[in-house]
């Protein structure tokens, strides 16, 4: 037979190469010569051997791929590799809306009553009804004989599953549904079928704080996008005993499907107090619904999560972890207290902008803070601050060629206005996003072939709503250098006159009015100061008695054409502020 193994090449993996190598090997013997003829029995055997080798090689290659996070293709493999890095992929999440409930016909002797957890609401999208529930109980207080409460409701169908613990017939505690919102998982362990007393088990988030008697469960994604609960072994968490009944309450949700839902009806509140009727009004449309984390996202996030070790140390840790864990946030920024205007050591400031809103509610800020506070270094206090909005007011002059377009002047102006709004949506509106002047101009130049050129002058604008009953100090932070003598404001009533603000180019802010012959007269000289370098405007003892609209707008012209947001600042262009003049030319 074979002379030596040197005739056998084993490096190729393709069928044809393997077959060719086997033929080479057979050339070293003389007993069977027909391997070159396709009809021979030898050729048929070679086919089978090469196929088998190729099959095994392919299979081993796939196994090799699935063994590493970078190359794994199957979700189960990716999740399993991520588990080794201590990472649990984010589950589907139901969208959350905020609604106001107003109860009528409640006995006014009742000081308060409770809307229980699990009260259900309904919204309908494309003729499909979706269930929303309260994920906590709310207390409705009697406030001057009215009963009004703002509550969060979250999309998802509440379900319960029970497992009986048995060492003889062990079960895996796998929640048998896809689309589980893991935030909603609540676990109780009933002592036995005869003894209905139960213990609430909580999700273990930090294994170092788990004791042998801690009633905790661990949560992992398992096969087929389902979630599995595991319990302690008596060392790392309280162990279950035979006969215990594990009761799991959870919701299955529809992810992003109900994002934007804004019409809800009360289904079943479960309020025990008698009332005649309840009306519902919307505060915030549903948002924050998301699908289960994708394979690519798990591959991206798991190693980073491992690097951060679920600890918040650098500012990027704060940004990444808060963004990742809170799907309702569009943008997050964090900075150390030492970088604040007045340095404060030992604090980390965090600001977040939710989708579709400008500010987080206090309760939401508290929720997020509570979710991270035990992951920060001991001496660091995380503090949530509101996002600061700096409005950009552009005036756009566009010259266009009348001979190359059928657009009317109004249509072209509308087109430009939309383009500026889109620029704001795409390039501004998030922390750290600068206004890059040349890019704005370029986007307008490229908008339509008929546009010949454009010029844009921009102002920075701050808005505030002062008290009209008490004097106060107003501080406006533009945080960008200001051109001298450019401060301006909308009108307000001061000392009985219709007044405005301006600056004297020397660093002072004045309150002035116009006389009947249109002459400017100062009402209050040196009412405040303006720092042209830092962009800070302060007005002392400001006491207007009325103002137009809901706020006073203070505009300045920036010294630089590019405007940079600092720390918690966000730049925005509001469509109402955009002024467009289109000038037609016959070229």
């Amino acid at each position: 037979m074979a002379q030596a193994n040197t005739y056998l090449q084993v490096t190729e993996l393709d069928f044809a190469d393997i077959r060719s190598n086997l033929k080479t090997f057979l050339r070293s013997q003389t007993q069977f010569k027909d391997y070159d003829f396709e009809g021979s029995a030898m050729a048929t055997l070679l086919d089978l051997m090469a196929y088998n080798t190729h099959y095994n090689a392919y299979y081993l290659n796939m196994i090799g791929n699935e063994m590493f996070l970078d190359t794994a293709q199957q979700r189960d493999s990716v999740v399993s590799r991520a588990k080794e890095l201590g990472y649990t992929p984010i589950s589907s999440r139901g969208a959350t809306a905020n609604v106001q409930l107003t109860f009528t016909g409640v006995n006014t002797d009742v000081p308060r009553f409770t809307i229980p957890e699990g009260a259900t609401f309904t919204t309908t999208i494309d003729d499909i009804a979706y269930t929303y529930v309260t994920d906590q109980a709310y207390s409705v207080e009697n406030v001057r004989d009215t009963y009004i409460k703002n509550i969060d409701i979250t999309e998802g169908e509440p379900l319960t599953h029970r497992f009986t613990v048995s060492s003889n017939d062990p079960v895996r505690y796998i929640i048998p549904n896809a689309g589980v919102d893991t935030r909603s998982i609540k676990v109780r362990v009933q002592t036995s079928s005869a003894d209905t007393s139960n213990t609430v088990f909580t999700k273990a988030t930090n294994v170092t704080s788990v004791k042998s008697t801690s009633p905790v469960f661990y949560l992992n994604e398992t096969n087929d996008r389902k979630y599995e609960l595991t319990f302690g072994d008596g060392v790392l968490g309280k162990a279950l005993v035979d006969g215990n009944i594990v009761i799991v309450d959870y919701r299955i949700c529809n992810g992003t499907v109900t994002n934007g839902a804004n019409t809800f009806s009360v289904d079943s509140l479960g309020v025990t107090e008698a009332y005649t009727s309840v009306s519902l009004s919307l505060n915030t449309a549903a948002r924050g619904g998301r699908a289960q984390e994708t394979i690519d996202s798990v591959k991206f996030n798991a190693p980073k999560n491992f690097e951060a070790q679920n600890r918040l140390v650098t500012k990027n840790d704060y940004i990444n972890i808060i963004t990742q864990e809170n799907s309702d946030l569009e943008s997050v920024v964090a900075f150390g207290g030492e970088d604040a205007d007045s340095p404060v050591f030992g604090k980390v400031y965090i600001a977040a902008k939710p989708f579709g809103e400008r500010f987080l509610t206090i309760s939401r800020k508290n929720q997020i803070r509570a979710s991270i506070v035990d992951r920060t270094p001991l001496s660091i206090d995380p503090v949530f601050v509101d996002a600061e909005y700096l409005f950009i007011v552009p005036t756009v002059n566009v010259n266009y060629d009348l001979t190359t377009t059928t657009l009317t002047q109004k249509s072209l102006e509308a087109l430009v206005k939309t383009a500026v709004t889109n620029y704001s949506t795409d390039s501004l509106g998030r922390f750290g996003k600068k206004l890059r002047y040349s890019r704005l101009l370029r986007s307008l130049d490229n908008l339509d072939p008929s546009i010949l050129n454009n010029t844009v002058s921009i102002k920075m604008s701050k808005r505030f709503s002062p008290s009209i009953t008490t004097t106060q100090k107003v501080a406006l932070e533009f945080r960008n250098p200001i051109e001298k003598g450019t401060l301006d404001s909308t009108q307000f009533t001061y000392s009985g006159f219709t007044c405005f603000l301006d600056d004297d180019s020397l660093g002072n802010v004045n309150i002035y009015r116009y006389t009947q012959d249109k002459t400017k007269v100062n009402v209050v000289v040196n009412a405040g100061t303006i720092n042209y370098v830092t962009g800070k405007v302060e007005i002392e003892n400001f006491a207007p008695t009325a103002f137009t609209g809901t706020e006073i707008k203070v505009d300045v012209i920036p010294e630089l054409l590019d405007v940079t947001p600092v720390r918690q600042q966000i730049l925005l262009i509001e469509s109402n502020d955009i002024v467009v003049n289109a000038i037609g030319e016959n070229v």
Partner: protein
Amino acid sequence: MALSKEARRNVEYYSDIDLAFIPHPVTGKLSRKTNRNAVRQSVKSLVLTNFYERPFQPNIGCNVRAMLFELFTPATKQKLENAVREVIYNYEPRAEVIEVIAEQRDDLNALTLSLAFYVINDPEPVVLDVILERVR
């Protein structure tokens, strides 16, 4: 020095495994087919192989089984004979076909294929009869 007829007959030009896989009655080793018999086995194997039966080599075979479900007309007969000629021409360079005859065997509910061919460098023709019939 030229080999005698007897000596030529004992030279092994071709050698293959016997597809019957019957051990040699004396040595217990795997039986072999040599020369004319090896080519004969190869031709039979090719005729009975269908397309897509061999892994990664879908074109080897002549698909005669597919024709068993056709009415046995002169056209089918010609097609069958051509298919056999073609597979031998393409995949068995050692055989030179003399004749292929397909016949209907009503008594057996079968078709017979009679092949006559020369093995290259061998003046004696080889005759092979293959019966095609239902397997179940």
